[in-house]
């Protein structure tokens, strides 16, 4: 079953997360209207792999920049202002720009892929309030643990708690 709780204040939300972790529910689905770094720390959310996308994008862009400038200069060897055909200082500028461009593009791609975006359906338990003015916690648990989960969710005073017998009915929360 799915138990969903609404919180008006960040502190209450954090208290509920701590209480859930005490009963060994380590990764409830948390919804936040803004980035709460304390919540992410408390939930112990793993680091984002997006960082590696940016690093790899930057490395690729840098190599692409050198390849582009050197290979095209050899392909069309235009002697200008007594600068060598393969001239490192001017090419460095283009490599830097290519590095930033590819890193930013890869970062956006990593962000989209790891978040499984674009997403057409809603996560079970999602409510519009969670995008606007409330924090939310959605916990999936067997019926036997329902009471303990409810207790933990009310450790930080919840505004509202809803229970759903299955995941599919939970999506009906969306307005």
């Amino acid at each position, binding site marked *: 079953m799915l138990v969903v709780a609404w919180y008006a204040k960040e502190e209450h939300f954090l208290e509920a997360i701590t209480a859930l972790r005490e009963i060994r529910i380590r990764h409830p689905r948390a919804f936040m209207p803004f*980035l709460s770094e304390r919540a992410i720390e408390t939930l112990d959310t793993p680091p984002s792999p997006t960082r590696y996308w940016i690093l790899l994008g930057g490395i690729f862009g840098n190599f692409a920049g050198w390849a582009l400038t050197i290979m095209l200069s050899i392909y069309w060897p235009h002697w200008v202002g007594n600068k060598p055909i393969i001239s490192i200082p*001017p090419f460095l500028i283009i490599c830097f720009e290519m590095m930033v461009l590819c890193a930013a593009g890869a970062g956006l791609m990593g962000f989209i892929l790891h978040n499984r975006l674009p997403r057409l359906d809603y996560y079970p338990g999602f409510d519009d309030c*969670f995008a606007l*003015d409330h924090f939310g916690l959605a916990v999936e648990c067997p019926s036997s643990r329902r009471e303990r989960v409810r207790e933990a969710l009310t450790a930080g005073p919840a505004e509202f708690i809803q229970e759903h017998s299955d995941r599919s009915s939970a999506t009906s929360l969306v307005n």
Partner: protein
Amino acid sequence: MAVARTQLRATEPTFEEINQGVLSTLEPPTRSFFLAAGGLALIVALGTAAWGYQIYTGLGVTGMGQPVMWAFYITNFVVWVGLGHSGTLISAVLYLFRSRWRPSVYRAAETMTVFALTTAGIFPILHLGRAWFFYWLAFYPNERVLQPDFHSPLVWDAFAIGTYLTVSVIFLYLGAIPDLAAVAAASAGVRRTFYRMLSLGWQGTDWQWRNFSAAYLLLAGLATPLVISVHSVVSFDFAMGQLPGWHDTIFAPYFVASAIYSGLGMVIMILIVIRRLSGLHQEITPWHFDQLGKLTLLMSLIISYAYLMEAFFAWYSMDPYEQTTFSMRYFGPMAPLFWLMVWSNSIMPLALFSRRLRRDLRFMFILGIFADIGVWCDHFVIIAGSLTTNFMPSQWGFYRPSWVEGAITAASIAFFTLMYIAFARIVPVISLTEIKQGARWLHRVRTGLRRGTA
């Protein structure tokens, strides 16, 4: 609403009140909006007609000719790139420093960057006699086996500005995704579907925020050196030349500072207009202008230092060409523009030492206008002014802009404004999520419980 806003000062704003205030900027446009947009579209149409006339007749309809081959269009290009400069800089640098006053200003600044760069990108094409061949700057397989010369600062420019525009769009869009999801949540019907598509179905889970913060932080880290590099590269267009008045090693930091200064002037004006028209008095406070004023003052002092150094180099080098160029700049036909520039960029901003004036929105608006005029004059004096006095007095000449250049310049301002006001009707120009994040702190600063620090 006025009563509710007065009451808000005594208590911390709730999330509902923040939503209500910011989302009110997205209400359906009024008649006055359509009138303003229609007027701006008309100016853009007139400018486009002037460009058509220029293409049909040739570049002779402009005031350009020997020796001044770069004038209004290239000045406008450099100024628009500069205006776009401070948007991403304010956003990225202040994000890295976790500045508390960033949330109220950064979206407006980033939006300015994107549209200013779009406007800037038009000018090199306008400057071409045969504008339809602008794609020759790109590398592509062709039967003439010609490729761009990567040693040329003009090619660096194309790469730098292209990258800057792309990264700025990514940065703006990424930061706006949670806000677009909030707008979707507060909407219904087609509007809801539209905003859900724009927000890619964002739902604000802890994992999504984790990925968001990693991507946003690293993009801010990448954008910061990029911002510095872009206007440095633009300054190389001139500094790499041998012309007296252009060949100057101080140009890179000087151009970066003047770009940030002009961008700050524009951000100040835009925020004052948004605050007044949308009634966002709680979200954009005099304290924000106080912080922007300090940054503007810092940039002004750097520019003033550059002016003094330029004069010193000309005198100390004992180079007669350099000395003649600068003497013509100070006392020749360009002198009125030069002294207007000194007033706008160096003397008037000294008033920002006064905390009272930094919080006086009327003064800040006027300063914003002068900052942009001053930087335009600055670049015009450097670009066109230096070209009037070449090495050989026999090559000297003068430049007078034609009505075509004036019409196209006016159209570029109208184009930028039109794009901006249309965008501000679709995307919140104040970040909903970050305002909520800093709501308690902002309230404490506003009510004097805590002294704000940048």
